[in-house]
């Protein structure tokens, strides 16, 4: 059976909780929870047939990652937001266009209902083989 995905523009950025928890410690569960989700609008959640809190796979040409889906407050179809951090970086680009700055924003992505039963293992990212 082919997978049904939704095309989105993925952007990453800061959140208050990401800031608070990184000050507690980068290896804490609180930090992991604060950076391992994607915000999607209601229509996208409906199209995927999932509820907020379900796991989704975010896929770009640079990689894929399984994170928790949250409903965005802004309700903007087509926009997916991930807090900056190791999960978002799995699907963002190292192409700096000769400026030093990677492509952390406005990345074409697809979101699928995840087959996995847990979010991606952060430990594997550090080894470079997520």
């Amino acid at each position, binding site marked *: 059976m082919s997978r049904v995905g939704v095309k989105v523009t993925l952007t990453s*950025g800061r959140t208050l909780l990401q*800031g608070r928890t990184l000050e507690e410690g980068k290896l804490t569960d609180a930090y992991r929870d604060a950076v391992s989700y994607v915000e999607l609008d209601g229509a996208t959640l409906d199209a995927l047939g999932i509820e907020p809190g379900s796991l989704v796979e975010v896929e770009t040409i640079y990689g894929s990652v399984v994170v928790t889906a949250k409903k965005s407050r802004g309700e903007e179809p087509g926009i997916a937001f991930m807090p900056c951090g190791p999960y978002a970086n799995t699907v963002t680009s*190292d192409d700096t266009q*000769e400026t*030093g700055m990677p492509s952390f924003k*406005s990345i074409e992505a697809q979101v699928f209902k995840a087959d996995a039963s847990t979010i991606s293992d952060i430990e594997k990212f550090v080894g*470079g083989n997520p």
Partner: protein
Amino acid sequence: MTEAEKVFTDVPCTFCGCLCDDIEVEVNDGKIVGIKNGCAICKSRFLKHHENRLEHPSIMKDGEQSSVSLDEAVSKAVEIIASARRLLIYGLSSTENDAHREAYKIAELAGGVVDNTSSVCHGPTILGVQESGEAAGALAEVRNRADLVIYWGSNPLAAHPRHISRYTRVAGEYIKDPKKDRKIWLVDIRKSETARTVDKFIKLQPGTDLEVISSLRALLRGHRLAVDEVGGIPVSELQEAVDAMKNAKYGILFFGLGLTQSKGRFRNIDAAVRLIQDLNSYTKWNMMPMRGHYNVSGANKTSTWQTGYPYAVDFARGYPRYQPGEYTAVDLLARGEVDAMLNIAADPAAHFPKACLKTLSQIPIINIDPKENMTSRLATVNIPVAVAGIECDGAAVRMDGLPLYLHKIIDPPEGVLPDRDVLGMIYKKLEKEVKK
């Protein structure tokens, strides 16, 4: 609650580029027990500074970190640096200025590259400014004078939580009623938390910042646009925006990573600088980057003072050369060009794209940081240090360029030194090694 034994006032918070210097820190029995005036992140920084610390200097042996003395860790660090052919020194934005000086000395002595975290935040801002000029002004000027404030590609409620309450939604000398006398706009691709607090939210399509800014410039110069909308914004709305900007008495454009990390990067900033220049033909306008790390602005300044360049500096030829895209950390790591890294007060393993992690996992890393993080898990050498602004003093630079003195509030854990002292030890030992 018992009364605090000692209260430190006017303490700068060392989290974001606001460097809010009105924090009250309550100390009991050598521990921080209370914070007043700080935001949620500030409270976390001060009250939880002792949690998840790197407890001892350590060296990776057989895949495990084993505790060693500080001297042993420094010796190992020097061994790695001395044998490296292409050393990358990275970080610096979350430590104080004196530590920067020692890092530049090591870079020069080792013939390495020294880059700071601005290469992945406002590096494009610096490139844009180098193209078109720098607007400068103080945050106090904004508070006292600005009647039109624009946040562009920035979400201050998440990243700079007190920026609005300290500088833009607050009364000033010529702004008696900040809700009536001052308008705040947000331009962004999504309705962030900040969108709900501003007077006007302008939504643009992702990656269209350059087109929108260029259109604003064209309209300001009296040109007619042959389209109905730009970046999803009707031209009539852009014209209204231009009219309001032109009629402001003092306007300020605060811009974030929505501009620097998006398509166009430094060209977005270049265009924004030129828009501000154009507006100054009619009225007073200024612009300011929303700097993230508390001393990333300082890292750019100290790097410029010491090496001549703000970031991405290579000493391989014995003198400093500057080339973003070549000597920037992400490019060097993604291309696998470096064979050792000295990481100071940053966590590249958590914040760099996946392609960089492969190199990070293959090269020796000397990690100097107060806390455990993803980079410390990979590091060959870890050296714990004091938290600047809490456990040692120093100087840092606010987003508007104002240098502030950081206080020492409490003692660091026993045997733990400031970054500057650890880096000074590495430099002295490396100097002897190089002379052999």
